């Protein structure tokens, strides 16, 4: 071995011996568990814009309002384990789209007559355990409860830093079991009384450190939903029979997601750029793309200002139409705006102030869906496409 190589090897040996000293590089280890307890709280107000009265044929103009409160605590449990628990409580009120009628100047929406008042509680827990300094294994469990809906979910995730590379492998498996008991299902003859669905999800991801300031991640996710996937509160207008039928969808759905994410830090500006892209497709023929960009700008005095932009575009499900001239042969049919072709643009602004053990932030988001924003050309826009604003305030407290 040449002297040169010998000295290079010497430096590598010294470096690894130096980094093996506890506390020498503690702040930069990727595979790690939390060493402090963090408590977070967030309150959000979600407001949907009223429907345009020209697009309304019956029911209430007023759409959804949701007030959400979230609490999360994450704490270390010994040296190799941490746990987080997250509770979400929301109250919802408003009218929801029922079905669509053909009108003189295009389709018009019929809204549900009564204003719905509902609440939802969701509890999620996650335990992360460090198997060794390269491997973290996580267990997830949760329940979600509404008057007409009950879901339990469980999952397992693993993270592995591949030695001598700058790659981190993640993988996970999740399962959710949902039960529906639609309001008035026992009274209304054409509404289902009780139904179930389940969903199984598997993903693999790989992240790569490209430089001191750049890291990228790619992931593939597959998800299978089975059971009653229709919306029990929605109907579809069948023109030649001059009547409505229940929203009816296939009883399975295979979904596939490919996602790429980038995080880049600009030391001179003390700013971080986030770029996320997600491609989604399923066997209902829905395909969508989501692009999200965020700029985290650190400012003097512990302030962080984050503007972000999100663009979303989707194609329609094969059994979707605002209304049908005649019933489909396969019996499926849905006029749900969520299965219609459209695009959406949302803008978000976030301001955060950091203190030593305390952060406060406020966020405002404005979201607008429209057929005009779709990448595909859309013949008929669904009249129920949403437009909403979200205002949130939150605090993080490190104990």
């Amino acid at each position, binding site marked *: 071995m040449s002297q040169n190589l010998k000295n290079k090897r010497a430096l590598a040996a010294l470096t690894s011996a130096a980094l093996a000293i506890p506390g020498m590089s503690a702040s930069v280890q990727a595979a790690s568990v939390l060493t402090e307890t963090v408590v977070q709280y967030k309150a959000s107000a979600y407001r949907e814009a009223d429907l345009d009265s020209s697009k309304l044929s019956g029911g209430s103009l007023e759409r959804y309002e949701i007030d959400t409160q979230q609490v999360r605590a994450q704490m270390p449990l010994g040296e190799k384990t941490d746990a987080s628990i997250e509770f979400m409580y929301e109250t919802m009120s408003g009218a929801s789209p029922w079905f669509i009628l053909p009108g003189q100047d295009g389709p018009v929406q019929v809204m549900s007559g009564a204003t719905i008042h509902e609440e939802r509680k969701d509890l999620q827990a996650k335990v992360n355990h460090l198997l060794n300094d390269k491997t973290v294994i996580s267990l997830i469990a949760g329940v979600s409860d509404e008057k007409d*809906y009950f879901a339990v979910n469980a999952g397992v995730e693993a993270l592995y830093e591949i030695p001598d590379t700058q790659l981190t492998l993640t993988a996970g498996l999740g399962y959710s079991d949902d039960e529906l008991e639609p309001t008035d299902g026992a009274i209304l003859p054409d509404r289902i009384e009780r139904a179930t669905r389940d969903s199984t999800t598997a*993903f693999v991801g790989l992240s790569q450190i490209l430089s001191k300031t750049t890291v990228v991640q790619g992931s593939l996710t597959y998800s299978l939903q089975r059971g009653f996937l229709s919306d029990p509160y929605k109907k579809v207008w069948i023109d030649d029979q001059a009547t409505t039928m229940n929203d009816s969808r296939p009883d399975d759905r295979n979904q596939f997601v490919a*996602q790429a994410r980038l*995080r880049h*830090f600009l030391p001179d500006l003390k700013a971080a750029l986030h770029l996320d892209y997600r491609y989604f497709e399923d066997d209902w023929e*829905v395909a969508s793309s989501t692009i999200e960009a965020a700029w985290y700008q650190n400012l003097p005095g512990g302030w962080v200002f984050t503007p972000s932009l999100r663009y979303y575009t*989707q194609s329609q499900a094969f059994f979707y139409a605002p209304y049908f001239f005649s019933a489909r042969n396969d019996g499926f049919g849905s006029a749900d705006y969520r299965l219609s072709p459209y695009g959406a643009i949302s803008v978000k602004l976030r301001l955060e102030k950091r203190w030593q053990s305390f952060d406060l932030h406020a*966020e405002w988001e404005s979201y607008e869906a429209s057929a005009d924003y779709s990448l595909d050309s859309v013949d008929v826009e669904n009249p129920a496409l949403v437009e909403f604003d979200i205002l949130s305030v939150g605090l993080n407290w490190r104990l």
Partner: protein
Amino acid sequence: MRLVLLLLSLSGLAACAVEPVEAWERDFLARPEMAWDPDALGSSYRNHVHFSKEASNGGASAGGGGCGCN
């Protein structure tokens, strides 16, 4: 599926441009605003909103359940 191929080729491209980054040089990468999801509550809230208003959902997570969203 074309997009998947694109993703794979992009990650292949990325692999060529990797610059060695030692553990002690990862302080920028370890900053809170460089996390995949810097705001845990914010991202679970937004996932829930988008899940209930759009046809697509999911991506690199084994958590969460459904909802009877209208």
